[in-house]
């Protein structure tokens, strides 16, 4: 009896030990690849440097596919460097980035979707490597420093953006507007509102938005309204305390949103669907307009029916406002930054990677995919005609105002997203309550 027990016990112990050994093996394997065999004396073959890379880029994504393909081209051209890519979905990326950075577990290369408070916080914590010593690779007349300043913190450059985007472009269905009697898109806000009212009276949903995540109304309605009413520097003034959320400038923008919502300007389910679904509403002719950033053009161009005619418009002028139609809220995006802990071999590989990813050829690919770029490159001849038309309409826009999420702390951004959802929900919040909430959040 005792023998049998002892035997069972030893078998159990053996199994446990085996599991331990197996999992340990797996682990050491991983660390080997992660450290990329650098400085291994016994290794006589040519060393391959492995760079771990956290990103949202994926091959089939209409928004980032081109970056993925550029990265693949880099790997092909540099067989001695391997990218170990971890792809995170766009919506989950900020959380993932924030937690890995807070935990000190950042990979070698990290995508920054944009500049802004989170990026600046990570950079100031010392987790990222400044690339000032590499900036000689890019001449000022190719990549003007004014276009890359969102990736500059306290005078140190950390990355280079791949594209420039405006957060508000009005896409409209030419046929619907023509049938309703509008051949020209209104250039004043009053005329725009009158058109919205008119469309609504004709039983057409005027504007579709996909605000489930809360970020669309912030970027593509509140931001342009703020710019048109108060000029380009309202957020900076509010942040510094010179103005308040509860002051008339900001309040008027909130009231305008509430007014639009009350007159039925938006699709009823704007806060329950995402921007892909909202684009589909627009493309299936269920709404006259769709408002989103300039990135929205990609899905429209890809999914629209052949005979669907899209028009592009700049957010209209508000009478008596301090802003103008030649300015637009916008941001620079898709910059790859480096982990501060890279050793020399990895740093050299990373420099090669940046040189490749932000070269004239790569930028031209990015333009072909329907993006505006921060660099001065000759436009390729084979770009999407729809995109070309959009850049033509946007050509009059000269200045970029920093967007809300770049300027405001994360807690205020979250509160604003919720406040805007409340404003546009039946029985939701009042502009006054939202503004007070935000002021309280900023003060904390």
């Amino acid at each position, binding site marked *: 009896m005792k023998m049998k027990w002892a035997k069972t016990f030893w078998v159990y112990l053996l199994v446990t030990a085996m599991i331990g050994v197996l999992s340990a093996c797996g682990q050491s394997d991983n660390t080997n690849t992660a450290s990329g065999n650098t400085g291994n004396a016994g290794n006589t073959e040519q060393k391959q440097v492995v760079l771990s890379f956290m990103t949202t880029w994926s091959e089939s994504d209409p928004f980032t596919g081109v970056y993925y393909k550029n990265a693949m081209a880099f790997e092909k051209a540099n067989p001695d460097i391997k990218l170990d890519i971890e792809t995170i979905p766009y919506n989950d990326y900020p959380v993932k980035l924030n*937690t890995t950075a*807070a935990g000190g577990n950042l990979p070698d290369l990290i995508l920054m979707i944009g500049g802004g408070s989170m990026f600046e916080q990570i950079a100031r914590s010392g987790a990222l490597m400044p690339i000032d010593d590499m900036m000689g690779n890019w001449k000022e007349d190719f990549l003007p420093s004014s276009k890359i300043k969102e990736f500059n913190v306290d005078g140190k450059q950390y990355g280079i953006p791949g594209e420039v985007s405006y957060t508000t472009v009005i896409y409209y269905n030419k046929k619907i507007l023509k049938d309703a009697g509008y051949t020209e898109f209104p250039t004043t806000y009053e005329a725009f509102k009158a058109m919205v009212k008119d469309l609504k009276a004709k039983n057409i949903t005027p504007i579709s938005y996909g605000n489930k*995540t809360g970020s669309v109304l912030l970027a593509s309605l509140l931001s342009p309204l703020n710019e048109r009413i108060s000029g380009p520097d309202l957020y900076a003034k509010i942040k510094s305390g010179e103005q308040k959320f509860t002051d008339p400038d900001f309040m008027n923008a909130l009231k305008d949103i509430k007014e639009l919502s009350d007159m039925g300007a938006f699709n*009823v389910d704007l806060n*329950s669907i995402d921007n892909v679904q909202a684009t589909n509403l627009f493309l299936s002719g269920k709404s006259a307009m769709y408002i989103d950033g300039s990135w929205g053009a990609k899905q429209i161009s890809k999914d629209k029916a052949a005979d669907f005619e899209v028009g592009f418009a700049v957010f209209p002028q508000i009478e008596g406002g301090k802003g103008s139609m030649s300015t637009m809220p916008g941001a620079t995006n898709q910059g790859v930054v480096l982990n501060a802990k890279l050793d020399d071999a990895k740093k050299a590989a990373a420099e090669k990677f940046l040189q490749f990813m932000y070269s004239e050829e790569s930028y031209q690919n990015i333009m072909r995919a329907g993006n505006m770029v921060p660099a001065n490159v000759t436009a390729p001849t084979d770009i999407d005609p729809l995109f070309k038309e959009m850049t033509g309409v946007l050509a009059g826009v000269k200045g970029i105002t920093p967007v809300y999420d770049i300027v405001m702390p994360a807690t205020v951004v979250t509160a604003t997203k919720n406040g805007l*959802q*409340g404003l546009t929900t039946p029985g939701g919040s009042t502009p006054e309550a939202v503004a007070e909430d935000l002021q309280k959040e900023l003060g904390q």
Partner: protein
Amino acid sequence: MQMFLRHKWIIAAGLIPALVIYTMFSIYPILSSVYYSFFKWDGFSPKQWHGLQNYVNLIGDGVFWQSIRNNLYFVLFSVLGEIPLGLYLAMMLNGKLFRRDGIFRTVFFMPVVISTIVVSLIWNMFYNYQFGLVNTALRAVGLDHWAQNWLGNPAIAIFVLCIVVVWQYTGLYMVIFLAALQNVPSEVLEAAELDGAVGIKRTWHIVVPIIADTIFASVVLCISGALRAFDLIFIMTNGGPSHSTEVGATYMFSQTFSSMKYGYGSAISTAIIIISFGLIIISQFILRTLKR
């Protein structure tokens, strides 16, 4: 048995691996989260001692209480929906009509097996305002004014989500009850029938008391499950519009990871633990009184 007592170290050796893992991944994070709740911390800059301020803010935070109220709706719907429905289905399947048909058992259990992400996406499509099944069906029978934005209307969104939860988990309790029902001795049922107890009477006075222990255990499972609710809401509405479908766990998540208030988020999770403990103790107390 004697073997066990003489070799306590064998038992200990068997328990230690599980205990170590449990401590590392469950106890330690809970304790450190309690510790963080006393700080003001954004995850990067040094922590600032904040005393009980996070908890003071929490008590004055309307959204937090709304999220707890939504949690309570979830508990109510789960306990009063999943358990009676599960019991009903189990009795149906245990009855003469369906007893031999395994197919129904599979059908009702299916939602439990499907991943929550899939469940959420399917129901999101059902509830879609423009193209969704629910609204299309209502419009087809001429009830156009009943068609509405199910997930976007703050007055009803949380109840609409409750329906999904009930749909998802009823099957689980059905299987548990089915197992319990099959252990009810047939002699007892036959004797009851001879004495004239049939239908509802037999169910209420004979069957339910026999499987009472199973029902009580299910209630506890149900409550803790409803308090933990996160994934379904996170995918279907993300707590919106404007916090109307926020539950404790989603609010904790958005405060911690979107607003980067690690200290406040930790305070929320600590409060959730305390409230959950309270609810479980209350429910145990009620059930024990009922038992007597």
